[in-house]
């Protein structure tokens, strides 16, 4: 897993609440047996018109959102299905950081396991970002190390579980890490 320490990029804003993983990656694309190549299908049913052309009304198709690596959205982002294809698609499309007032639990974990940083911010702070990035390209710097976000006229700090932070900072293979506790797992199994 690629470590994430400091990240600088532009934001794409999606002023919508309860964005579910069925929208992030519709079910017709879940049949692949690989982890890669899902970016082209990200938000497929919202992103493309029936004739296959990009829908100009959809947020990610707007000019100022092109090349964004930070996604800002409304509360309960990633709700619904546990499909990890959702973070795989966001990652493959180019997003490294997602900012929202709240995330669905499984989605949050799935992001962390893929080296993407989900950031919970106060709703008012998210609203500020949503308006700053609504019509123009807006840049942010995210420091995981210092748990800080800054941009023109914007400052915020965020909290993250220290364990996830360490994992992301180091890009660790979690399974390898857990297997170091093999003795403890074995002891538990014998006791049970």
């Amino acid at each position, binding site marked *: 897993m690629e470590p994430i320490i400091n990240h600088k990029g532009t934001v794409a804003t999606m002023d919508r609440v309860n964005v*579910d993983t*069925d929208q992030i990656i519709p079910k017709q694309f879940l049949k692949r047996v690989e982890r890669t190549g899902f970016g082209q299908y990200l938000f497929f049913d919202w992103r493309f018109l029936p004739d296959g052309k990009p829908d100009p009304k959809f947020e990610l198709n707007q000019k100022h959102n092109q090349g964004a690596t930070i996604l800002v959205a409304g509360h309960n982002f990633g709700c619904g*299905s546990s499909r990890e294809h959702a973070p795989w698609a966001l990652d493959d499309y180019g997003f490294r950081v997602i900012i929202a007032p709240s995330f669905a639990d499984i989605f949050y974990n799935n992001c962390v396991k893929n080296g993407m940083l989900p950031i919970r911010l106060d709703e008012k702070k998210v609203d500020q970002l949503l308006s700053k990035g609504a019509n123009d390209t807006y840049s942010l710097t995210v420091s995981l190390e210092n748990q800080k976000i800054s941009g023109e006229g914007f400052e915020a700090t965020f909290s993250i579980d220290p364990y996830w932070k360490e994992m992301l900072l180091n890009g660790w293979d979690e399974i390898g890490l857990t297997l170091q506790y093999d003795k403890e797992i074995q002891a538990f199994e014998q006791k049970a």
Partner: protein
Amino acid sequence: MAPKTIIEKIWETHEVMQEEGKPSLLYIDLHMVHEVTSPQAFEGLRLANRKVRRPDLTFATMDHNVPTVNRYDITDRIARTQMETLETNCKEFGVDLVDLVHPENGIVHVIGPELGLTQPGKTIVCGDSHTSTHGAFGALAFGIGTSEVEHVLATQTLWQSRPKTLEVRVTGKLSPELSAKDVILAIIAKFGVDVGTGSVIEFTGDAIRGMTMEERMTICNMSIEAGAKAGLISPDQVTFDYLEGRENVPSGDEFIKKVEQWKQLATDAGATYDRVVTIDASEIEPMVTWGTNPSQGVGISKTVPAPTDGKTETDQRAIKQALEYMDLTPGTPVSSIDIQHVFIGSCTNSRLSDLRAAANLIKGKTVSKHVRALVVPGSEKVKQRAEAEGLDQIFIDAGFEWRSSGCSMCLSMNPDVVPEGERCASTSNRNFEGRQGKGARTHLVSPEMAAAAAIAGHFVDIRQWKLQQVTQ
């Protein structure tokens, strides 16, 4: 000892490691695997040259992609590859697979309990958000992503932050005209799709205690739709009676011993939760969702709301967007919404009691000529039992299509799809945009409400139907 909730009891007896400031390393008693969320996990093991640590605690089935007309005729090449991949993986890693030809094949959350694999006090995971279903037995059961599937395969554990506890109390007596589905839809409509975020729900109260195991499974199944990590119900005699005699459940003295252990799991009197919400069963009526998330639902006697009913500007915009997608006008009586499709099935409502309830209501009636109606049993065993009772014939005589088991039109990964712009009364769990097909409009209801809608061609208040049946 301080009184504890069942959630704390299960959590604490499964912690392999607990260090200050770190998530707990939680031992997993049962890992269920299906074809859609596992291929990348097995591939990860292969690349790192790792094994499945406890094949004996791992169990696989195929359900999401399975065709329901002829289950062996898989014309979708990519779907077939996915199922073949699971077969290869299970063989290579020594995992038991209930494949398509197996007489016990079915939806993972239907067959786990059927086989007695689901038991009180277990920690159960699966790469599927509706794993919460198994909480009905007093198990801590939750959905995980594919990276976590790989982690459990390799280590039989997961790093998990301790969840908050949320009691959802359903007081009063549930009227016999209502179903468990109405209760859970009413809970989500009242408290929202993220009331449970970061929490495990325990459902309590007289209305829950009075439910059968199959009803309890419907309730716990949709915990994830309230945003919860898991939902569970403390086990009682109803639970033990359901389990007795099932394959994988100990028998004789061993069973008696188990029951004594299971009894200790129930939440202690005086235990407290981080949060408690309450709903009175008497305020619930048969529910229909009108929108594009499971909280956007109302009672059958109500009308479609307007964007101005939203509390915040964001809510108002969400309602407006949902109404546009669903092509509904505010103020429309729910009972006047015409439907073109009916789906009775899914891990929420495809068990024998669901099929019985639906069949009872429509016996001798005929499906509206504008409606295509599907019944998809949750497992091959459910199908077989329903057929032994003649339920299949009741459905077929009324004009329903009687299919073989699978996830089917709940997420339409198989060929069962709702066409664009058409409406479906569905007993499944999600009414998200495009869930049953691109542009398809899903209304979540109970099996009886779906069956009645198939006959009438629109939603009806089944309480009035039942009244007529009694007076006739």
